[in-house]
């Protein structure tokens, strides 16, 4: 069984998305990157991100990640902010009682996007 099925698939993404997005919006380290964005579209994007991080179906490429975050890199997005997002993601999964070894796998997948997200 793959990571995505082990975590619980699409229902797990649905359960996690609001908890995760609320943590991000309330996180003073990163909330400024989310001001003025369309929340409805943003919630759909958070879902795409979680699906990917959970090892689920997605067709995002490194180039999509670069393009999608370039405007944030211009506004100062760096490693510390990336770390904050990964931390919020871990806290979300802990709240949902996901076992630690699965959280580590999710963090590892998120980690693979770091250089593209930060435009390095």
């Amino acid at each position, binding site marked *: 069984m793959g990571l995505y099925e082990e975590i619980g698939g*699409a229902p797990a993404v*649905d359960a996690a*998305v*609001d908890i995760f*997005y*609320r943590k991000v*919006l*309330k996180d003073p380290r990163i909330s400024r990157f989310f001001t*003025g964005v*369309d*929340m*409805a*579209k943003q*919630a*759909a*994007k958070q*879902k*795409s991100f979680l*699906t990917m991080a959970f090892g*689920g*179906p*997605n*067709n*995002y490429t490194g180039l*999509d990640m670069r393009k999608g975050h370039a405007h944030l890199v211009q506004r100062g997005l760096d490693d510390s902010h990336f770390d904050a997002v990964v931390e919020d993601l871990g806290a979300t999964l802990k709240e949902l009682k996901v076992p630690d070894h699965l959280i580590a796998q999710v963090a590892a997948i998120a980690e693979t996007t770091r250089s593209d997200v930060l435009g390095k």
Partner: protein
Amino acid sequence: MPRVAFQGASYEAGELSVLDCLTARGHAVPSACRAGVCQSCLMRAVRGAVPDKAQAGLTPTMTARGLFLACQCFPTEDLEVALADDAIERTDATVSGIDRLNDDIHAVHLRPSRPFAYRPGQFLRLFMDSRTSRNYSLASVPTLDDDLELHVRRFSGGLVSGWIFEQLKPGDTVAISEAFGDCFYVPGKPDQNILLLGTGCGLAPLYGIARDALNSQHRGKIRLYHGARDSRGLYFTERLRQIEAAHPNFRYRPCISGEASADGYWAGTPLELALTDNPDLTGWRVYLCGNPQMVDAARIETFLAGAASSEIFADPFLPTAAPPAFAVYVSPASSS
């Protein structure tokens, strides 16, 4: 083999998704993740039923409108599909009345020439001529009202609102589009609490949604906050107080943000007052209509107060894109 009809042509779907079937024929259908998540490829089924999988993750209002994800839709029967925001039908309607609601807002009553399906809270496009149109929200309820009712706010220099205020009269015939939008009441959770928050003529959809919910025997709390700078910017206050008196689960708060509150009004913005009265919105359904800044702020604040992102429905009345000199405000299609 099921076929897919789109913009007057029809194609055999084969093993392809609706998205791949149409893009292979050169149609521009927006898409991004192609995995059923990002909702960029939303389309609408005009005829035929789509498989359940094509609607996974959509809100109940989207499903009720026949919206589906083109990348996840492998047709099992013939379908006719349209881009989610496309106006595909026009109907003639006779102006049956025009009422003044306040200095800036008039109600336009329309009688369509043929049966017109809509849900209270949706909006339609009203055509001044073949090329010029604006979107207006519906305040009427099909099961309660004979005619359609639109609330039109006049903007200085507004092309269409100026025409409606100065030239349109009872007996005239106008063209209207079909109804659009995701901001409407869906029966099925009669005990869920509902928050309705609006400014200016954003009351129109909320008035329709509130009456639709009450008429559907909704049992949860229904809280309506309508805001304006001063009491002259509000309207329907007497009607809404009557509804409040008749329904114990409905509460109406006319809010004034620009001056000290007079008797019977509350001081503050509708968002502030709503969150003070209802600080925990966990499990609530939320409808937001009117001023786009208010709607954006309220989306985030009500979400942080506990409302699920899938239960927040919004209809920001965005300015018409061009020309910039005209401050004409319309409600957008569901692009936002």
